[in-house]
């Protein structure tokens, strides 16, 4: 029984860490612009697919991984420069629709540049499962958990200790005030797209050995990451991580103990219940406008 519970927990943590990385990407852009970037899942796909084709071309991981992340970040920056910025006077809803369009465009482009097949990526450090308390976990899952933790720490340092990070945080609190004290809000927005694209790409590369990758892998992951961000409270880094882990563990626990057919439904019922009592999510900013 406890071995079973342990297995569900380990699985839930791995899945949850992936959701958390996606949710963080959503939060960073939301903070800078109040836009929900629906192309976040596509960054995950670009990271994974680029890593696959670069390693297939013979590059070692140490070179392929940074290149793949850089490629995704460039796509993120280009998306901001050529699609979001020209529409900067437009309403938030318009901007969100632009990101939906961008996600469809990127998926189509990936289908042409790469192909429609699924691709495996070799695990970073072997394929032999590690036994923990009667349950097993893949070495790659430890990578996912470890890197997620490292990213969370790095981000909290970035937002708490660096000038640029503080500027981004200030923009999220009050855009006009931030502009008045001399923060280049446009630059903040520009960089936020690059940063969240890089985060998405890291997630995509980490999970590709576990889940395989293909041109449309971002669709479902993007939705789940979005749900995690909402659950944790949009814009909150802590919320993104907690939201992701809660969603992942809720899914695997309900698949294990209740019914696998309804596991997604159960996860979403939990989200609805939380939002019913805490409309801005677990860690969201309170006192916002109520609709």
């Amino acid at each position, binding site marked *: 029984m406890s071995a*079973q519970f342990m*297995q*569900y927990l380990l*699985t*839930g943590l*791995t*899945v949850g860490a*992936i959701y958390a990385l996606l949710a963080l990407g959503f939060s960073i852009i939301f903070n800078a612009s109040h836009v929900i970037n629906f192309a976040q899942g596509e960054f995950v796909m670009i990271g994974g697919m680029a890593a696959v084709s670069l390693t297939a071309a013979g590059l070692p991981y140490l070179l392929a991984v940074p290149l793949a992340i850089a490629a995704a970040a460039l796509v993120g920056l280009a998306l901001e420069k050529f699609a979001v910025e020209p529409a900067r006077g437009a309403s938030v809803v318009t901007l969100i629709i632009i990101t939906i369009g961008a996600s469809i465009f990127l998926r189509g482009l990936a289908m042409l540049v790469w192909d*429609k*097949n*699924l*691709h*495996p990526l070799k695990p970073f450090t072997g*394929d032999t*499962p590690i036994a923990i308390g009667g*349950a*097993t976990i*893949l070495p790659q899952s430890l990578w996912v958990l470890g890197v997620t933790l490292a990213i969370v720490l790095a981000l909290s340092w970035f937002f708490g200790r660096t000038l640029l990070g503080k500027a981004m945080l200030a923009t999220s609190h009050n855009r006009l005030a931030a502009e008045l004290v001399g923060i280049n809000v446009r630059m903040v927005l520009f960089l936020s797209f690059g940063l969240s694209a890089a985060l998405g790409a890291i997630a995509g590369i980490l*999970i590709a050995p*576990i*889940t*395989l990758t*293909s041109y449309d*892998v971002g*669709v*479902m*992951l993007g*939705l*789940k990451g979005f749900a995690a961000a909402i659950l944790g409270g949009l814009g909150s880094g802590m919320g993104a991580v907690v939201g992701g882990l809660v969603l992942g563990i809720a*899914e*695997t*626990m309900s*698949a*294990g103990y209740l019914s*696998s*057919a309804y*596991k*997604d439904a159960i996860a979403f019922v939990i989200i609805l219940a939380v939002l019913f009592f805490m409309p801005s999510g677990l860690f969201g900013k309170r006192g916002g406008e109520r609709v």
Partner: protein
Amino acid sequence: MKTTQAKTSIKRSLAVLAASCALFTGQAVAQEPIKVGAFLSVTGGAAFLGDPENKTLELYVEKVNAAGGVLGRKLQLVSYDSAGDAEKARTFVKRLIEQDKVDLIVGGSTTGETMAVVPLVEAAQIPFISLAGAVVIIEPVKKWVFKTPHTDRMACEKVFVDMQARKLSKIALISGAGGFDKSMRAECLKVAAKHKIEVIADETYGAGDTDMTAQLTKIKNTAGVQAVLNPGFGQGPAIVTKNYRQIGIAFPLYQSHGVASKEFINLSGAAAEGVRLPAAALLIAESLPASDPQRSVVVNYKKDYEARFKSDVSTFGGHAYDGLMLAIEAVKKAGGTDKAKVRDALEGVRGYMGTAGVVNMSATDHMGLDLTAFRMLEGKGGNWTEVK
């Protein structure tokens, strides 16, 4: 400058038009071509079906014509891309029947597209050979509708027969949320009792799920399970296979014909070792013994296809090959393109050896395949080998 350009282009198109008229009437005087209509999902989500099917039809229409055609008449292929959309399929089939006036139709990559056009072909009384999988296409029997691929029910039965041979009777199912998965799961549940198989666990996973260890742990801890069957399609089965090995389940794992390809082994790596699945002979064409009656058909098709398109052959293209060859055989036997006669000839096909297996059509069976159409394969050393 512009006007002269326009004039020359008009002149040119007039010349082309005149030439094609001459060509057309010339042909009409000599011998009217046999018009084969097709509607396939060449693009869109089901492109992995429609693309090889379309290529196969083009390749073999060309080959047959180069060899002198059928009954001294050339074949003419009229093909439309229905992109996996049932509504488009209806539109194109209407066009095939009313405008293009084709003699017969080979097509319908997906079950949805096929079922959408069944009323049209029945009303127009035109022979139609579908390339889609589900049992509903031929059950109940529809007068003008035939199909070439095996059904998911046959795949279930093939697996169950193999399980019985290995004395495995209590099994667990794990399947995805897609159409293929759901349909095959339902068929397996239907025929399980017939083969004395008891399904004691029935788990599912979602479309984009990245981890199935929770479901598999539950199966592992269900008392009495002796084997697991994963009716599935896409990336799900590869992840199931990997997770299966990860949590160290000892009993046999069966996959479905939905992932019967070399790609599945590439995706699941070492975890595919020992996995069994039912598949068409095409997958192991070269390793079939010389005495195998199907060998020459599948090896030749594989060679032709791979030489021309420089890509791996798929069973789906094989379905189109079978469809076209059955149509040609029926036209030959009917001595022309009279629709009723061609239909009767199709229903009368016996002992035709195709890429899917031996076809024995009858008034009650418009597919004509039996369980020998499937081979039971096992993953061994990074490749598929036939289980004897």
